[in-house]
């Protein structure tokens, strides 16, 4: 054996130990924690202090100032040297400025769409509170115009227009609106969540690199949230998308759904067997389940009408459908 001999340390500090409170020995078989998704969620939860934000804003402003002044100096200098090249530079600069304006406009439009969804939602809640039928009517009409361009929504909108006058109570009217307009959208959003959960489960189970799987999970989740927002009518830009992610994560934290219970695997059909099969697959399944929860939270946030008559999709149902897909032979 080795030279490390047994040794007894006499301790007379009088302190008493409590083995019950001591951490259990770390085992290689601790249940999977969904490390990649937890890291991705943490990344989305980072909040900067006021001073830090001010500092970053100042830095960004300064860099942009330097860039624009340098560009301007460069173009005017070029004009003085050679008129033809100078005009070319000027035109190109104009193109850049136009593109920037277009980007800003798109972001702004994205924010506006998000705000419109928010407004519709608030309107629905207010109408339900105050039992103001006119407001509910207006809200449903606005919802109709929002979705008017979509072929799959034409029939539900027409049907709502037919049946709405039969409902006398305001909350019944809003419930009818939810039951008529939302199912096709909910189904599409659920499919998105399933696809994302499956993808995250597979990616985090397959990618052996520690940071890359976090990145993959983050990208997949961002895309899922953007698509869900699109489905419910709030197409966003990049900034809006990030903003949305933060909102969704805040919602998820508020509902306490980020904690990984050991039941998480149990909620998934064959999940426990998967985790016995391989630890990596267990991790993947938990990551997928967390993605599904994030997706449901995103549906909560993006839906113009809150879940009242229709049932919110359940993580376990989404996961079992998502994982059935994993073992299908078709790609």
């Amino acid at each position: 054996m080795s030279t490390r001999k047994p040794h007894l340390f006499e301790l007379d500090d009088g302190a008493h130990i409590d083995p019950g409170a001591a951490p259990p020995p770390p085992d290689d078989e601790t249940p999977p924690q969904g490390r990649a998704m937890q890291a991705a969620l943490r990344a989305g939860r980072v909040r900067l202090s006021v001073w830090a934000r001010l500092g970053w804003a100042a830095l960004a402003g300064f860099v942009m100032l330097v860039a624009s002044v340098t560009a301007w100096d460069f173009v005017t200098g070029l004009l003085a040297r050679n008129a033809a090249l100078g005009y070319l530079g000027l035109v190109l600069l104009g193109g850049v400025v136009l593109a920037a304006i277009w980007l800003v406009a798109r972001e702004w439009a994205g924010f506006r769409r998000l705000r419109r969804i928010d407004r519709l939602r608030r309107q629905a809640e207010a109408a339900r509170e105050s039992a103001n039928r006119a407001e509910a009517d207006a809200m449903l009409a606005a919802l109709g115009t929002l979705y008017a361009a979509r072929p799959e929504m034409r029939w539900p909108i027409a049907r709502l227009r037919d049946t709405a006058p039969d409902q006398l109570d305001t909350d019944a009217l809003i419930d009818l609106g939810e039951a008529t307009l939302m199912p096709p959208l909910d189904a599409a959003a659920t499919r998105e969540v399933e696809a994302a959960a499956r993808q995250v489960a597979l990616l985090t189970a397959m990618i052996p690199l520690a940071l890359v799987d976090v990145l993959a999970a983050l990208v997949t989740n961002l895309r899922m949230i953007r698509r869900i927002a699109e489905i419910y009518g709030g197409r966003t830009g990049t900034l809006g998308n990030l903003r949305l992610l933060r909102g969704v994560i805040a919602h998820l934290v508020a509902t306490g759904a980020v904690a990984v219970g050991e039941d998480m695997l149990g909620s998934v059909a064959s999940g426990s067997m998967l985790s016995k099969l391989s630890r990596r697959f267990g991790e993947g399944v938990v990551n997928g389940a967390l993605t599904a929860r994030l997706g449901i939270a995103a549906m909560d946030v993006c839906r113009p009408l809150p879940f009242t008559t229709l049932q919110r999709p359940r993580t376990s149902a989404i996961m079992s459908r998502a994982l059935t897909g994993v073992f299908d032979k078709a790609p």
Partner: protein
Amino acid sequence: MVIGRLADGVLRGVDRVTTTVTDTVSEAFFEPTLRLGVTGLSQAGKTVFITSLVANLLDRGRMGRMQSVAGDRIEAAFLQPQPDDTLPRFDYERHLAALSAQQPRWPDSTRQISQLRLSFRIRPGGLLGGMRGARVQHVDIIDYPGEWLLDLVLLDKDYAQWSREVLGRMSHRPFAADCLSALQATDPAIPHDEGVAQALTEGFTSYLQSARKAGLPDITPGRFLLPGDLAGSPVLTFVPLPEGGGRGSLGREMTRRFEAYKSQVIRPFFRDHFARIDRQVVLADILGAIHAGPEAVDRLGQTLTELLAAFRPGRSAWLTRLLGGKRVERLLFAATKADHLHHSQHPRLTAILTALLRQSRDRADFAGARTEALALAALRATIEEQHIRDGQTLDCVRGTLAESGKQAAFFAGELPADPMQLIGPARDGAARWLEADFQIMRFAPAPLIRKTGDGLPHIRLDTAAEFLIGDLLR
């Protein structure tokens, strides 16, 4: 007389078949019962294991690795009076009180057989879960003195073989010299005299006691140490003698008593308590054996292997089960007192246990039983700390020493990464470890601070419980 014995045997057989059939039928249709066998030599920690298992199944806060606990499937668990009317109840409350007293102490070693029934109400899950009501599952646990267990090995031996083995073993144990010379000086051909027999038995019993003190596990016959109400009866008055002697001689009488001991003491014990076990956990105090020396390790491995040959592992088919032939479906080998060692060495401890019981495990695996080996502590008495000595960081365990009652942190030395470094010398009959440097201090249980809903602190007891009974609680 012969006819009477035959009839008795037949009646008993019929009785057994009918009880098993009724048991099985009622189990199959109403309330299933599982018999959990807790097997282990004396001082292996059976009583603490059972007490802690029951406490942790009643308060399931620390059993997170059991799926039925994590999935919140157990509605309620409670202690029932045991089903066997003639057996004492396992004194759970007294043992628990000993462990959770102000000055906690290990419970007294078991002196008699006792039984306990734990019943669960389980909420069914799955697709049809909502349509069925809660179901009931009983788990019967049996405690008995570890000394008695050793006798099972005798069932396959006759007197001459047993005598040869025991005398052979005594010949290289210094503390056995007095007893051995007395036995060898006795001529088995002399006429039987009860006085001589009793004097010899006395000497032999004191040899068995010193063998137990030396940490050697092979002390047969076990009832000599814990005779109960059989003390002084002829069936407990015999000694191993060299072969020889005719009718009416001392040797012939000893042979007769040995056979009587087998048929009247061992066989009923085995038939009533071991033949119908479904799941089994084999507890072994590997650390204590390593501390005691190579011979103890070798004897522990051999004794456990011989013992396990008495059980029938494997999957029992429905029909054989109905006809009374139960088999042990799951077998857990557990190295107890793992809290006396830092967790970084637990895998090595498990490896030593596995290597020691390799033969039994292979046999059980081959028969279709599921087997598992792990290091556990039914009651955790220490915490883990690091201390620095001579510039080396040592992974220690800290607790209250059982002897002095003082707080101490202890580094036990390092177990070898290759278990054969221990088992090889043990098999070759080495007198002591050559390069090994390993010791064990006994720790007393720590005063308990229990939160509501939490059982006793443990190490991997939930993993063990999940393996043993987890599938029936889902």
